[in-house]
């Protein structure tokens, strides 16, 4: 009796597993595929567009400082205003410089880090932005708080987590699959896809857990955000006080320190601060905002340098984070895989592809098997329920 009950219980788990993503399988598949593309979107653009590559003019060439780059840009385009400059993760990428032209257009320029030459500007179709928007919020615009597309996508974290758990429950002694991998090619499509689904499933346990948990975090983040609940301990830097900004003797602006001076001040005051991006003051009362990855690569450290007093008015370092923020702030980089250079991205992209294939193989198995299994289970439901012993803790929750 107990044996049979256990069997029917695991069949129920199996059905739950089978039905989790099914009616929306194509949506789930597209979210997985676009997520995979988004992970390596920067690299895809690097391959497709020579403008974003940091080509070295000769072996002896050295990288320019941010201020040297600004000077070169000023020379090339005297009327252009620079808003932001950053070195993407990886020295093979050209600098990204957000600028505004006198006509009000505001593209990102790709600038050679060795020569300061403008190699090109961001095309009308931003592949990175598009894949991320499609994956992240299904292109639904943000009009009031988080877009409902964001909820739609991040909600998938829950069935994905449930798929992982139920999948492991129904795959008896799944750990044996690590030592004796089975992938049968000669027993027909159903057997092959079943083996494939199980094999890629067990090797992706960690990845599915990471993606579904961090995906669920995005859901929580939106709920918190839309209810105006913040857990951030990052200080809100007030604008520079009026009395700290000197009056000019002429009509021309008061001199402000340049980016290299600001970088020097920040890195002297904050040992270990790595500066890979700089935001220029956004008005006369604004700071120079600098930062880069911290020793804990999943987090950025930033500093706001007062361009008049030369003080570091505010900073936010890895050590300033609360324990809760340490967890929550790690969620996004863990989801996107952009915290350890190309190698991590490729691992994420590979498993993203495997996950996409799991959705597809799951569907293929379902079409061949689950339809019949469901019909059979429904038939059994007509019979009077059996008594059963609670033999496994995993099966206790199903009883209703």
């Amino acid at each position: 009796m107990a044996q049979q009950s256990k069997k029917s219980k695991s069949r129920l788990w199996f059905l739950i597993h089978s039905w989790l993503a099914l009616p929306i399988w194509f949506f789930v598949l597209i979210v997985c595929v676009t997520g995979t593309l988004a992970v390596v979107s920067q690299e895809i653009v690097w391959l497709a567009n020579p403008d974003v590559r940091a080509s070295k003019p000769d072996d002896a060439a050295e990288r320019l400082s941010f201020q040297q780059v600004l000077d070169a840009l000023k020379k090339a385009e005297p009327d252009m205003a620079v808003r932001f400059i950053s070195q993407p993760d990886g020295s093979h990428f050209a600098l990204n410089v957000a600028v505004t032209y006198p006509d009000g257009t505001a593209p990102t320029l790709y600038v050679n880090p060795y020569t300061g030459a403008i190699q090109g500007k961001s095309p009308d179709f931003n592949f990175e932005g598009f894949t991320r928007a499609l994956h992240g919020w299904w292109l639904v615009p943000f009009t009031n708080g988080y877009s409902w597309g964001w909820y739609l996508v991040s909600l998938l974290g829950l069935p994905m987590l449930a798929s992982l758990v139920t999948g492991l429950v129904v795959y008896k002694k799944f750990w044996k699959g690590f030592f004796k991998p089975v992938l049968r090619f000669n027993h027909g499509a159903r057997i092959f896809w079943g083996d494939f689904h199980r094999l890629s499933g067990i090797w992706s346990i960690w990845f599915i857990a990471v993606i579904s948990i961090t995906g669920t975090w995005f859901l929580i983040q939106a709920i918190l955000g839309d209810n105006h609940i913040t857990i951030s301990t990052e200080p809100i830097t007030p604008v520079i006080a009026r009395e700290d900004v000197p009056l000019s003797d002429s009509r021309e602006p008061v001199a402000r320190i340049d980016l290299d001076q600001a970088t020097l001040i920040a890195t002297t005051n904050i040992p270990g601060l790595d500066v890979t991006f700089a935001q220029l003051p956004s008005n006369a009362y604004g700071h120079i905002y600098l930062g880069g990855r911290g020793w804990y690569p999943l987090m950025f450290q930033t500093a706001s340098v007062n361009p008049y007093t030369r003080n570091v008015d505010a900073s936010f370092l890895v050590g300033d984070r609360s324990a809760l923020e340490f967890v929550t702030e790690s969620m996004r980089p863990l989801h996107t895989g952009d915290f350890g250079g190309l190698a991590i991205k490729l691992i994420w992209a590979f498993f993203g592809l495997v996950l996409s294939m799991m959705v597809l193989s799951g569907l293929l198995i379902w079409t061949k098997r689950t339809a019949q299994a469901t019909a059979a289970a429904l038939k059994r439901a007509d019979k009077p329920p059996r008594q059963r012993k609670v033999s496994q803790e995993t099966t206790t929750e199903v009883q209703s």
Partner: protein
Amino acid sequence: MSHASNAIATPSPLKQWWLKWRFHLNILLLLVPLGFMPKYFADQKLFRGESGLGATPIENIAVGPWSISLAELRAEAPRQDGPAGYFKVFNAALCATCGSEVKAAYLRIGKPRSLRAAGTIFFGNPHRMATSLPVPERTRGDAELWITLEGWDGSMHQASVPLAKASPATLAWLDKQGGKK
């Protein structure tokens, strides 16, 4: 109805409908990004400044020795930001020659009494800057939008435009608010 428990033999109409149409959920879900795609690309263009300064632009408003162009980011009612109230984003661009002389630009509903109360400061650069203007629900329909420009030499100049001209959508929204109360 004695066979009602046998779901296989006589599925309910609802269940039949679900079984027949469940996979069409995918199509519905796919229509969402397809439908929003034009809006997405229009927004991208707007953020890149390729659709001009914004909606309902007012060109070259003289402010003392300088001039400024003003436009609402979108032709729509103010958006609520939780308990902070309603806000309306305006863009501005300074005249080509005055960019270096103007230290800061401010926007306010109603005439500021001093530079310290000049309103919300614009962020950006002389070619394109933006500010998020609080719009109280009780704002009068004939309210004026005051622009304050502060020079690096300490000088201050002001000008105003009717809110109704700068943002007809805000006026319509205010009318509706008034109707509710």
